[in-house]
């Protein structure tokens, strides 16, 4: 069962106000995000759905502070990201956001432990504390014994679990996932989604997940935002989302 979203009752973690991101490609103006206004309350699990080129990833990059809007505003915890300096945006990404990508994006030359503790290096956490935190994060995703392995020695699912551990290490308030199961088989994808849901439920983390798989979104997300050509075409609450761990394969 789904219903349209009008006014979220919880305080907003993310507020997009008439947000646009346009690119000039030669003579053509690409409207990746076009006048989008959305509020996402803290602790919500939101899926951004749409076909390829609909602007999902562009929107995620804007929320992550990796890109700046052409117009409008991205407010995260009432801070307008467009007004932050490059240095402040880096701090925002370090302390407020955790990111998971479709292609895992682990540094291939580093071990899992080194990959996971990398954000802690940027946060200037002491080595001893860093090692313990990284190991705990890896244990949480079931990779405690693979800490010294390099990404190439791991399966896709294991790599994505390691990426999740890295995203969690700084205890961010937002977890932004860009097609987190896109490169995984259905069983492994379920495993990853279970982890993400667990973080949402146990840590109260706000999740924004980009996917083009509606079934996956319906299974896990409490809210689904549909985009097409950079515009919001639908915004629904999903009451049928599974709230407990499942071992079923998603379609």
């Amino acid at each position, binding site marked *: 069962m789904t219903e349209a979203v009008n006014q979220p009752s919880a305080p907003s973690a993310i507020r997009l106000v008439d947000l646009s991101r346009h690119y000039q490609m030669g003579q053509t103006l690409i409207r990746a995000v076009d006048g989008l206004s959305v509020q996402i309350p803290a602790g919500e699990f939101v899926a951004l759905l749409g076909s390829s080129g609909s602007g999902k990833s562009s929107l995620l*990059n804007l929320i*992550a502070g*990796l*890109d700046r809007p052409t117009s409008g505003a991205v407010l995260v915890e009432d801070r307008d990201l467009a007004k932050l300096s*490059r*240095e402040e945006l*880096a*701090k925002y*990404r*370090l*302390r407020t956001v955790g*990111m998971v*990508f479709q292609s895992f*994006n*682990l*540094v291939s*030359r*580093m071990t899992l432990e080194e990959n996971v503790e*990398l*954000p802690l*290096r*940027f*946060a*200037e956490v002491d*080595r001893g504390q860093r090692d313990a935190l990284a190991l705990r994060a890896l244990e949480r995703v079931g990779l405690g014994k693979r800490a010294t392995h390099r990404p190439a020695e791991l399966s896709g699912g294991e790599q994505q679990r390691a990426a999740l551990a*890295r*995203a969690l290490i*700084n205890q961010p308030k937002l977890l932004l996932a860009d097609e987190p199961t896109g490169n995984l088989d259905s069983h492994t994808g379920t495993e990853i989604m279970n982890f993400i849901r667990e973080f949402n439920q146990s840590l109260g983390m706000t999740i924004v997940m980009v996917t083009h798989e509606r079934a996956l979104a319906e299974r896990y997300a409490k809210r689904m935002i549909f985009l097409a050509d950079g515009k919001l075409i639908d915004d629904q609450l999903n009451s049928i989302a599974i709230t407990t761990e499942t071992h079923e394969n998603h379609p």
Partner: protein
Amino acid sequence: MKTYDLTELALRNLRESSLRNSLTTIGISVGVASLVAMLSLGIGLQKLATRRLVSSGLFDTVVVMSRRDLRGFGRDDERNTATAAESRTLDEAARQEIERLPDVLEAYPDIRFITELRYQGNPHLTMVSGIPDSARSNDAFSGIQGSFFSSDSAPEVILQKSFAAELLGKNTKSSQDDEIPVADLAKPILGQELVMRYAQRVASAETPQRAKADSSATVGNVKHPTQQPSDSAYSVISREQEFKIVGVSDLDPDSMRGAARARVFLPLKMAESLHVMQSSDLRDSVRGFNKQPSYSTISARVKGPKQIESVEQAIKKLGFNTFSILDATRSLRQFFAVLDLFLGIFGSLALAVASIGIVNTLVMAILERRREIGIMKAIGASDGDVKKLFFAEAGAMGVLGGMVGVTLGWLIGHVINIGTNIYLKRQSLPPESFWSVPWWLVGAAVVFALVVSLVSGLYPAARAARLDPVQALRYE
């Protein structure tokens, strides 16, 4: 990011592309080695020249003359300025006063006279000079055959090799004789006796009881033949003294401290005790100055060339004229400063080429690690973190290259030094050290390599920091 994290990550990144980074580091090493080699050659040559000049005694000696001696150096300056009060006698009291001046190690009279020396009954006329015990370290006596004087008052002589050749009946004008090794000249002559006949100055009141005078003459302020000579009058007595030949010096007498152009050397105290009639005695006698025996010149040995100027000023204030070769040392220092500059520039050229290698390596690293940079930015690395990381990598290559380069430069210098000395030995020349790698050069070379590397890393680091994370993450 903390410094040790930065260093660790930088070294780790360098290890990952070990071949390329090693080649770049070798490039820096070659540059630093060339710089070190060039500069150490310049420094070595400067040290060698300075050592030679200082040991020659020319550059740490002030020659002191009386202002009465108008033949001396700087007479034009002094002719108008010297007053009667300032016109002091260059006597023993003056010598002691000069010796007490700060930075003066010793002051000794220049005793030099032409006299007759008899060897195996044959007379030879030559210049004889008294030299102080400090001349033991003089360059002129470094290649001595036999030994230096056993004491400052021993009846011993050292011969210049051309005089030794003359005593042995060799023709010194012949270019062939110059090739006779000094050892061959010394062998038959060392330990032999040499008889010197000289003119001794004796005060008229003194009766030369012990002297076997051949003849004598009275010189002085005599107004009338029947009058007693005044206290400035003295007698000149011909005397003989036997000396033992203890050494033969190899070098040209022109390079010798305060004993220029002499061919026979006596210990200074011995020479003084002979009271040999000096040319200045006669002049002073005519002018009526010589109540006390005076010296024609005094040599003041100064701690180092740097103190020459102040000592000269102090001596001038005492009322004497001075002369030193200070200006020559200034020109010498200027020459070596220019030489070092040019050698440094040539040496730096290789380092400049190496710096292009660093830029190339780091730009390649940015291209290769574009995605990695994107990942780092996505998970919270600031522009500064990325910039510092590339700086650290450039710096690490610089420091490593600098250290290897200094070692390489030192080794090159050592090998060339050994090679040069083998060549010198074959040419029957004494070994020399043309190479000097002082500690400051070691430190400066490593710091210079670091600075060059950091400057080379400026552009790549800025480029990496500016990288758009969205674009970088799309890069495959």
